[in-house]
Every structure is written in structure tokens, then in C-alpha cells.
């Protein structure tokens, strides 16, 4: 009997069932927390009631979007951490989200007219950020983890500046809409009903590709050379995951804006409980991340009456994740610096 039981299909499915219960429970909780005055009986039975409309047009799309976004960000964080062998990697911290925000805002504002191109711009921005940050952080064929984090910070600042330039130049009405979206809110935009399906497909493709890469990510922990000797191509794995993470994160940011630290907090918590095997960490992070974002989002709507305004959900995730990031950075400086 091992201290940590070996990962068997049975153990995997048990954990995933627990994760699914958590995500569904979080969605149900969010339904009530987000709109306490909703009477579910009426909302489900009476199609002419305002309750029915509120459930179908507001709450369900918002919760679905929260689930997809949380799953994508958490799984992308876990995959990036494994890929870069850096426990502090996260789409937000590495500037991938910043690149996606700039890319999606640029294509929206530069006048393609429709918000539907935003995910494409997000993908291009995310991919560009990932390539630039990785290239600059690579020294003699190795990625220097701390340097990569620093470059990510600088890249985020540059993306922020880029957004301000766009804001100054573009049409005020469009700017207002785009910036609202980038603030990090999972509320679905009723004028663009196609965004949620686009986001779901992009995230779904990304999640499947990440899950298929799980064993390769495990072997990569041993170093590129040993991974190669075990039949994995680290370069191909990196390329595939960079592309699918950019697609998924690009679409996520384009639709819901900057929701930071989910990719950091969730995989970290999951690993503490189940160990580092990506075959379990990736899908379980997706489920836990889905639940986490939905609850965080419901809590901002629950707080809205007291605050007089609704905070962006990204504020909540940053308030939880920022301190945790600092604690991690302080806790294991040597291991990260390696």
C-alpha cells in the first residue's frame, strides 16, 4: 500500500465523480445565490413569467459560461505549469490573457463590426504573447522560469498600455462595450448569442487536447531528454499545447475578459490533494475551476445590492489568487529559481 495510492481508472473516475458533484453543486448554489428572488418552480413551469425569462436568458447562460471559463482557465493553468515545469505558470501571469485581451479588443475596435471575431483576435493575441514570452525567457535552449514570470508581467503592462491606446483612438461607444467585457465578467451578452457556442467549442477542443497530452506532460517532468527517451517529443507537445491553450484562453478572454489566477489557485489546490499526475490533475482542475468561477461570479451578484454595483468576477479571483501567488513565491523560491 503506497502513501498515495497508484492512479487506477477506478481512482480517476471516483475523483472525477466527486469533481462533477462539486461543479454541479456550485452551479445550483450559484443559481440561488445569484438571484435569490427566483422561484424555480415558476421559472421552470410558466413560460410566460418573468422568472422563466430570467432563468433562460440570464442565469443559465451566465452559469454555463462561468463553468466553461473556469474549466478552461484552470486546465490551461495546470497544462502550462506541467509544460513549463513551473508551478507559478498561469495564463494571466504569463501575459497570455493580456495578449488575448489586446488581440480581441483590437479586432473588435478596428472595425470588424461584429463581436464574433473577438475570439479569433483573442487567439492571435494569446499565441503571440506565449511565443514572445517563451522566446524571450529561453536561454541556451532552456526556459528560465523566474525570468518568464517577469517577462509575463512586463508583457501584461504592455498589453494594458496597448488597450489604453485603443481606448483613446476608437469610437467611445464601442470602447465602453469592449472595456466592460474585458473587466472580467461572465454575464452573457444577449446581443451575441453565438459567443457562448464559439467559446464552448474552442474550450472543448482545448480541453480534449490537454487531456490527451496528460501522459506526455507527466513524462516531461523528468526533463526533455528523459522524456524523449521514453518516446515523447517535447517540442511537438509544446507546440500542440501552445496552440490549443491559445485557442481556448483566447476565446475565453475575448468573451469574458480578464479573470486572473484561476489557473494558478485551482491546479495548486488539486495537486495538494491528489498529487501531480496530470491524468487526474487536468480533468479534476477543469471541474473544480468550473465550480470555483461560478461561485465567485454568484458571490459578486449576491454582493451587488450591498455594494450598489456589481464587481467584476475577476476582482474576486484576483483577491483570492494574488495573495496565494505571493505566498507560493515566498514559500518555494529555490525550487522556482532552478
Amino acid at each position, binding site marked *: 500500500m503506497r502513501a498515495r495510492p*497508484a*492512479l487506477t481508472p477506478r481512482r480517476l473516475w471516483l475523483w472525477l465523480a466527486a469533481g462533477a458533484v462539486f461543479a454541479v453543486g456550485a452551479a445550483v448554489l450559484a443559481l440561488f445565490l445569484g438571484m435569490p428572488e427566483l422561484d424555480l418552480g415558476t421559472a421552470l413551469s410558466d413560460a410566460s413569467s418573468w422568472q422563466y425569462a430570467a432563468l433562460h436568458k440570464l442565469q443559465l447562460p451566465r452559469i454555463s459560461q462561468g463553468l466553461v471559463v473556469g474549466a478552461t482557465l484552470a486546465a490551461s493553468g495546470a497544462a502550462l505549469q506541467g509544460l513549463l515545469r513551473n508551478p507559478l505558470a498561469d495564463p494571466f501571469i504569463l501575459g497570455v490573457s493580456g495578449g488575448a485581451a489586446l488581440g480581441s479588443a483590437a479586432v473588435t475596435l478596428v472595425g470588424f463590426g461584429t463581436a464574433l471575431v473577438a475570439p479569433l483576435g483573442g487567439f492571435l493575441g494569446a499565441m503571440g504573447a506565449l511565443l514572445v514570452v517563451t522566446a524571450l525567457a529561453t536561454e541556451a535552449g532552456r526556459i528560465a522560469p523566474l525570468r518568464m514570470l517577469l517577462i509575463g508581467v512586463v508583457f501584461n503592462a504592455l498589453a494594458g498600455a496597448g488597450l489604453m491606446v485603443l481606448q483613446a483612438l476608437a469610437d467611445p461607444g464601442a470602447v465602453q462595450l469592449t472595456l466592460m467585457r474585458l473587466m472580467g465578467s461572465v454575464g452573457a451578452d444577449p446581443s451575441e448569442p453565438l459567443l457562448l457556442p464559439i467559446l464552448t467549442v474552442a474550450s472543448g477542443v482545448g480541453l480534449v487536447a490537454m487531456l490527451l497530452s496528460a501522459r506526455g506532460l507527466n*513524462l516531461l517532468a*523528468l*526533463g526533455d*531528454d528523459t522524456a524523449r527517451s521514453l518516446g515523447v517529443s517535447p517540442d511537438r507537445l509544446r507546440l500542440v499545447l501552445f496552440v490549443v491553450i491559445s485557442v481556448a484562453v483566447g476565446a475565453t478572454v475575448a468573451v469574458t475578459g480578464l479573470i486572473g489566477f484561476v489557473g494558478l489557485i485551482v491546479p495548486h489546490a488539486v495537486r495538494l490533494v491528489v*498529487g*501531480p499526475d496530470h491524468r487526474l490533475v487536468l480533468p479534476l482542475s477543469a471541474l473544480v475551476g468550473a465550480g470555483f468561477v461560478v461561485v465567485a461570479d454568484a458571490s459578486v451578484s449576491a454582493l451587488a445590492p450591498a455594494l450598489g454595483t456589481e464587481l467584476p468576477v475577476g476582482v474576486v479571483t484576483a483577491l483570492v489568487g494574488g495573495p496565494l501567488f505571493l505566498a507560493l513565491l515566498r514559500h518555494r523560491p529555490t*525550487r522556482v529559481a*532552478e
Partner: protein
Amino acid sequence: MSVGLAARGVVFAYPGGRPVLDGVDLEVAPGRVTALLGPNGAGKSTLFRVLAGLLAPSAGRVTLGGRALGVIPARERARQLALVLDPPALSFAWTAFELVLMGRAPHLSGGRFESADDRAHALRSLEAVDAAHLADRVYPTLSAGERQRVLIARALCQDTPVVLMDEPTSHLDPAHALRLAGLLRELAGQGRAVACVLHDLALAARTADEVVLLSGQRVFAAGPPRAVLTSDNLRAVYGVTARWVDGDPAALVVDGLAPAGPARQ
């Protein structure tokens, strides 16, 4: 299990640089332990990486079981050739057992999980390097020597006919180094082809069937230890004085620096 590894006329140069290997021939034969020796900068590590398929030779060829190494599909190669490299730093809390179990990956098709047999194999591999008690320890908490043994166990768990190790004793205490020597003999006894880059001449002398002594980017001498590790050769290559002491087994003693230093070619 009679798969061997061979290099013929291997030349390797980094882009724009002069050759680091200049026409190397060698054979890592099944059932034999081959030691790759040579002073710092002789090209041992580069030769190791070329033999391992991590670097493609600029000229010449490396064959595994008679087939060019470069054309063998990665997974198939992983079932034939295992590597022990310098212990890496790990960022996540893998246990020694979980890392050793990764050696089974090339044998698992599709999304299959490791079976009870695979887990038993991993435990036996840890036992072979006297590390069964480390199974549940988290890798970052292990000492350098313990890490090295765990990674050797990982290669054993891969269960390949050819095993290449790069300085496998660099972090080991004398008892574990001698145990490793015994393990290398055992692997060869099972018909495997075993090759190690070694710095410890005495260990190579008592363990290896074949010694390949590199110097100046070339093979200076190759053959059985007593024929290759002669005092003349060691003076010429390393600039040290050494002598053999008869016994069972005969031992090589390096006893000092040669007055004139190594001969420079």
C-alpha cells in the same frame, strides 16, 4: 534480447564549431558492460548523447539492433533503449515510486493505465538499487545520491535490452557505487547491452568487459580493461600514474600525477 548499439565513423560538430567527435567507432554489445572513459573535454558526454539518439551525428551512423537509430519510431526506441541522465530538479511533488513507474510508459498502449504487474515491476526496480524504502518519499526531499538511484530504477523499470548511463555513480557513496557495479554486471548477465560514462577508473576497471578510452575527440584505445587501462595509456591520456594490483578481482590503483602531465595531441 540480443540487441546492441554500434557507432561507425561518428563525427559530431556543433554548428560553426570544430568537431567534438571526429570519427568514433564503438560497439555496445549484448551481454557486455562497456565503459566510456576519457578526460574532461574528450567528448564523452557528446558521444553519450549521440549514442542515446539525443544528438544526430554530423557524419557516420549509430545503429540500434542493426537499424539506424534515427529512423526507429520514438516509442519503439523507448522499448529498446533506456537512459540514465543527471538527476533533474523537479517542480512537483512526485513520489519516487511514481517516477519509477513512468518507466512503463513506452509499454502502455493508448490511454492504458499501469497494471498491478507494472507496479510490481517498479517496486522490484527500486529494490534493485536499494531504494525500496524511498518509494513513498517525495522526490524534491531526496538527497542527490537517492535521486540518482531512483532514476536508475526508473531506467530499469523501462526493461530495455540496451541501457545507457551517464556518470551513474557521480552522487553515490562507495557502497552504493559498488552495488551499482554489481547491478551493471547483473544486467549484462541477463543479456542486456550496458554502457556507462564513468570517471572512476578503478570502478570501470573492475566492472567493465570493454573499455573505450576517448582522447582528443577520438577513440584512443578500446578493449578489455587490462589491455586498455595500462599505465602508458593512462599517462598519455589523463597525465596520471597508475598500476594494477593482482587479486580477485584485480584492482587498478591511480597513485599520482605523472611528472610530464598528459601528452597533448
